[in-house]
């Protein structure tokens, strides 16, 4: 935490932390406390007067079908994104781990989608699935599927899941490959001598040994799906059709900036903050546990 020896106390350390602390106070702590304060207010439709209503915004949300629906969709969306991108990454990393030569070349070719902005990922996928022009609706037509994610809510949801999962494969792949490569060779060799074939070795040894990484990635992917996918939703569906893809982050934005429902949006922000805090705590518990190994 602190060095055994340190510099004598002076004004200097305060000056050193000042920039970060000032920015944190102005752009983090103050807005966050404003959000908490506003979540207790209701503003009338014309913005003329505000009323302090304690937890009314929250109790309203707890009974609001739209909000609860959005909550459920967000969870569904996150589970699908995490499962799709993690399993794809696990398979690719499992094979890449076997390869002696060229593993880094494969890595190079697989990691760059990490650098693509979510909104761009959305743009690419929305183009590929454009109902009139896109290559996939064209192919799907041959098997009798009529693709139009502007009208079909399930198709819209599938599309944002694909786009979000696609972008995250790179990240998961990197961590899985690193975890697999850190397993001592001798352990896998011992299993081979015991007569376990490659598939068996993977499920009996490699997969259990990398389970801390799986857990870590689950949390990271959940955070990603909850908060970093705004761009994808905004570009691909704008939450539609008929709110079919309105996840929580999108709803906060939409209710606040488009619907101008100050108190409701703030209450949603506060709920999201608690979710982030919970996820961060889980993540740190994991880190602590890992240190003890």
């Amino acid at each position, binding site marked *: 935490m*602190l*060095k055994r*020896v*340190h*510099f004598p*106390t002076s004004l*200097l350390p*305060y000056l*050193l*932390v000042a*920039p970060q*602390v000032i*920015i944190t106070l*102005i*752009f*983090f702590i103050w*807005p966050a406390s404003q*959000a908490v304060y506003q979540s207790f207010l209701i503003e009338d439709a014309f913005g003329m007067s505000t009323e302090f209503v304690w937890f009314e915004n929250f109790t309203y949300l707890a009974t609001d079908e739209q909000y609860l629906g959005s909550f459920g969709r967000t969870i569904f969306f996150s589970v699908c994104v995490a499962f799709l991108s993690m399993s794809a990454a696990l*398979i690719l990393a499992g*094979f890449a781990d*076997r*390869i*002696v030569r*060229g593993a*880094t070349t*494969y890595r*190079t*070719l697989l990691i*760059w*989608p*990490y*650098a*693509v*902005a979510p*909104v*761009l990922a959305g743009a*690419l*996928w*929305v*183009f*590929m699935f454009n109902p009139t*022009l*896109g*290559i996939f609706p*064209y192919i799907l037509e041959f098997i009798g599927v009529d693709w139009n994610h502007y009208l079909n809510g399930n198709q819209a949801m599938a599309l944002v899941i694909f786009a979000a999962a696609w972008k995250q494969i790179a*990240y998961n792949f*990197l961590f899985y490959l690193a975890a697999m490569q850190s397993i001592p060779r001798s352990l896998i*060799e011992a299993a*081979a001598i015991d007569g376990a074939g490659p598939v068996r070795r993977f499920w009996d040894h490699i997969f259990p040994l990398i389970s801390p990484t799986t857990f*870590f990635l689950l949390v990271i992917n959940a955070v990603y799906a909850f*908060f970093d996918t*705004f*761009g994808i939703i*905004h570009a691909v569906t704008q939450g539609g059709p008929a709110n079919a893809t309105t996840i929580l982050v999108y709803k906060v934005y939409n209710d*606040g*900036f488009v619907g101008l429902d100050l108190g409701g949006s703030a209450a949603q*922000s506060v709920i*999201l*903050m608690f979710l*982030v805090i919970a996820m961060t705590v889980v993540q740190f518990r994991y880190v602590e546990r890992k240190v003890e190994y």
Partner: protein
Amino acid sequence: MIENRPVLNIASHAVLIIGIVIVALPIWITFVAATHDPVRMTQAPIPMLPGGHFWENFTQTLFGGGLSGTESAPVWRMLLNSLMMALMISFGKIAISLLSAFAIVYFKFPFRMGFFWLIFITLMLPVEVRILPTFEVVADLGMLNSYWGLSIPLIASATATFMFRQVFLTIPDEMLESARIDGAGPLRFFWDILIPLSRTNIAALFVILFIYGWNQYLWPLLITTETDMTTIVMSIKQMLEAAEQSPQWNIIMMTALLAMIPPVFVVVAMQRLFVQGLTETDK
């Protein structure tokens, strides 16, 4: 590998190649779309092989006014804005995190732990969850439509501070003692010893932060209203909206390509640093 099974090895390569094809397919389609003329791009099915209009689209996109029939800044201007924002965010974050980590590790002063926790809290408040009040603060400070407004609210970061704290803690105490005997004061020690000793960590973090900064979307979307301040990443969305009236997919996809190239280049060119940065900041 452990056993010699040629079939399995071939299968491994095959799976990986299929994986790469799936991962790369969206980019290929983007690239192909950016090489055709607008008319070809309105006919289904869209082509799967490149056409001959790459340079034409390239110059029109980069120096023309973006989509015809809409009012927007030229793409080179957007690229410049994105670059400014990404660089200001990365350098700003690195600078303030280095300073605060230095203070927290190498000084003992009242409220040290208080500051530490204050910084720690920022880890829990991504911009998306406090978007409206943060926007109001920036608006009140008159920072809308400025590089400062684009970057400063995003440069406080607990992750970078933690990473540097970790790095500093692994530097032996004797470095400091030796420097003190040599007569180096705190700032001299920071500049002559600490910064050079952490330079690979700084570079690794820079790669991650550059991508983070470049790819910002919601934040610039809110605080820039003048076309001159548009970033390349947010312009895509505006073009998608316009495409519903006048589809010019060749230009849109060329823009997407241009928006992707800088961060992808950084990742591929600095792969080792990128991997190091990713694993260090998240653990």
